[in-house]
């Protein structure tokens, strides 16, 4: 390739195509390099992409129809006290309550390959060029500046900026001298099994909830160096995904025989865990087994967390920048957020003809100011869980599970969430109704088993009069919310003066009030259960039958 590009994006996983699309849309000549034969061939994940990735992430994903497998309304935590006796405790407080579940979702479960392919199509539609089966093995350097990449075929492809979205191993970043090999303490190795299962069984056994198991080491469900969790199981459409992960090293320098151990833990769980043994095992058929390492503990180390993510002419995003979350083990939202920021900085840099590291520092400053990225890479809860497990302290274990994966997460998530919400509403006051439409549209896509219902489903002329009326009402309400928020925007200053300081102390407020609020909340939920269920059926019916156009932006 003799052409010169404005931007080369290395890696077409979750983050790369987002950066490529934004750059291409801004008129930059953009090339995406992907080492696998087909996009998504080598991306292995869970995967629940949390709702905040969709709400605060790229517009084309929020307003589009990405391929999701199932909405997820939260997590059910099983604390395995004695696997032999079936002594198990449950914490399922982190679930979106009825009547909102599963329309308002905690996240969306997805397979990586169709999702990344969808993103890449959007980037290509916007004008980016995709080059597959090509590994970037080094960067072109001229006077300290990165000026493109060198491929495994020996090609030298030049560009003004390289956005490195190569994922967690960061081999190119190491070559370029921005990173060193991460220490094994920061890496978790995840052993993953994919099972086929009839949809009706997945519906019955899992519904919309991810299941997670926790326990003492001797229960042999949690790998010995795991930071707490024994396993996670994600329900998909006609399948389920099972994952155990294990840190490559904690304090011990000795690495145990993982091949033997993972097998042992897997068979222990599948043969002894009551819900797996009785419900899943007879109905599930193993379809695939694979594994990958991910660097979810990078952020725990302040020094690593503060490493620069750029040099002259090159920016790291997503996993390549170490932006995996220690709090929930999710990395897709941070990959999307950082891709957007990087693309916008790259566009500015190219327009001002300044790709120096001094200019690109803007990117790092924005990453450091991003409330959700910073929250997600610095949470210590999984370390705390490990300590509780080691000490066999059930009280602590309960507390940390509740803090990390139960309602207690509100005590550290409220401030970053609210800050993001405010800044997005300030930028675009109609965003709230876009979010509502997104939730409804995603549910409709899931329900009609199609990633883009509008191309398959004919508009339902036959919707009943009652539904038509509801559609009209719904549209009117959304317009009302929009105009209300627009008028609020005019009072932005006043809003910031009151709301910003308030959002800063939200976490503390939650810490203080949650012990009182939580029992009241569960009591009210129980009390309202019959009404919520009825309302839930009504809402679902409306979303299932309404004309899809009302859920478009």
């Amino acid at each position, binding site marked *: 390739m003799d052409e010169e590009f404005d931007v080369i994006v290395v890696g077409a996983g979750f983050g790369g195509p987002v950066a490529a699309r934004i750059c291409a849309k801004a008129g930059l000549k953009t090339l995406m390099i992907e*080492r*696998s*034969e*087909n996009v*998504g*061939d*080598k*991306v*292995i*994940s869970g995967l629940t992409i949390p709702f905040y990735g969709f709400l605060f992430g790229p517009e084309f994903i929020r307003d589009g129809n990405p391929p999701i497998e199932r909405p997820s309304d939260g997590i059910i935590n099983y604390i395995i006290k004695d696997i032999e006796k079936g002594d198990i405790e449950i914490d399922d407080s982190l679930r979106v309550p009825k009547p909102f579940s599963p329309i308002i979702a905690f996240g969306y479960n997805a*397979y*990586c*390959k169709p999702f990344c392919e969808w993103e890449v199509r959007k980037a290509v539609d916007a004008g980016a060029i995709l080059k*597959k*089966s*090509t*590994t970037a*093995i080094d960067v072109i350097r001229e006077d300290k500046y990165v000026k493109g990449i060198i*491929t*495994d*075929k020996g090609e030298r492809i030049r560009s003004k900026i390289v956005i490195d979205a190569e994922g967690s*191993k960061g*081999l190119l970043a190491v070559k370029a001298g921005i990173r060193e*090999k*991460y*220490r*094994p303490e920061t*890496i978790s*190795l995840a*052993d*993953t099994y*994919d099972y086929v299962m009839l949809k009706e069984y997945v519906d019955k056994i899992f519904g919309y909830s991810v299941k997670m198991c926790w326990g003492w080491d001797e229960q042999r469900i949690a790998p010995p160096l795991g930071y707490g969790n024994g396993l996670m199981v994600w329900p998909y459409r006609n*399948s389920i995904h099972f994952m155990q992960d294990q840190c*490559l*090293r904690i304090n011990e*320098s000795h*690495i*145990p*025989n*993982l*091949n033997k151990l*993972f097998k042992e833990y897997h068979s222990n769980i599948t043969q002894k865990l009551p819900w797996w043994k009785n419900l899943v095992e007879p109905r599930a058929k*193993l*379809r*695939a*087994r*694979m*594994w*990958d*390492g991910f660097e979810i503990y990078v952020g725990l180390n302040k020094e690593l967390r503060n490493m620069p993510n750029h040099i002259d002419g090159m920016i790291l995003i997503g996993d390549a920048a170490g932006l995996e979350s220690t709090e929930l083990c999710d990395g897709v939202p941070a990959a999307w957020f950082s891709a957007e920021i990087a693309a916008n900085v790259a566009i500015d840099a190219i327009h001002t003809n300044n790709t120096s590291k001094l200019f690109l520092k803007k990117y790092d400053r924005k990453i450091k100011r991003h409330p959700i990225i910073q929250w997600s890479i610095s949470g210590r809860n999984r370390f705390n869980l490990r300590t509780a497990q080691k000490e066999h302290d059930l009280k602590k274990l309960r507390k940390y599970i509740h803090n990390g994966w139960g309602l207690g997460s509100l005590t550290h998530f409220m401030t970053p969430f609210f800050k993001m919400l405010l800044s997005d509403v300030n930028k675009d006051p109609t965003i709230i109704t876009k979010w509502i439409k997104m939730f409804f549209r995603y549910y409709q896509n899931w329900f009609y088993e199609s990633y883009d219902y509008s191309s398959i489903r004919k508009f339902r002329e036959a919707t009943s009069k009652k539904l038509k009326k509801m559609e009209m009402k719904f549209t009117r309400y959304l317009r009302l919310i929009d105009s209300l928020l627009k008028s609020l925007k005019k009072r932005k200053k006043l809003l910031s003066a009151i709301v910003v300081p308030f959002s800063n102390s939200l976490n503390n407020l939650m810490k203080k009030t949650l012990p009182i609020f939580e029992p009241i909340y569960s009591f009210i939920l129980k009390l309202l259960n019959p009404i919520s269920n009825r309302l839930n059926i009504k809402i679902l019916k409306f979303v299932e039958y309404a004309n899809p156009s009302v859920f478009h932006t």
Partner: protein
Amino acid sequence: MVRTFKEFPGVEWVEGTGDFIKINEEKCIGCMNCVNVCLASCFEIVEQKARVKSLEKCMECASCWYVCHEDAIIFTWPLGGTGYKSEWG
């Protein structure tokens, strides 16, 4: 050409990767870390040094590279378009 293995369903390996993991024998101290961490049994110890037995089932997770504190493992990617792939990740 594509390889599959019964013990790893749902995964295929496209041939032509080249020797993408190598061991620097001078640096290797035979600590067994790479042998223990590898779920695809790619390594063996011969005369107190690690050796790549076979990369045919390697899933390119790089765990061997991370745990080698002597930096004896040279880890690169297989040639573009080759190596493991799966629909179900």
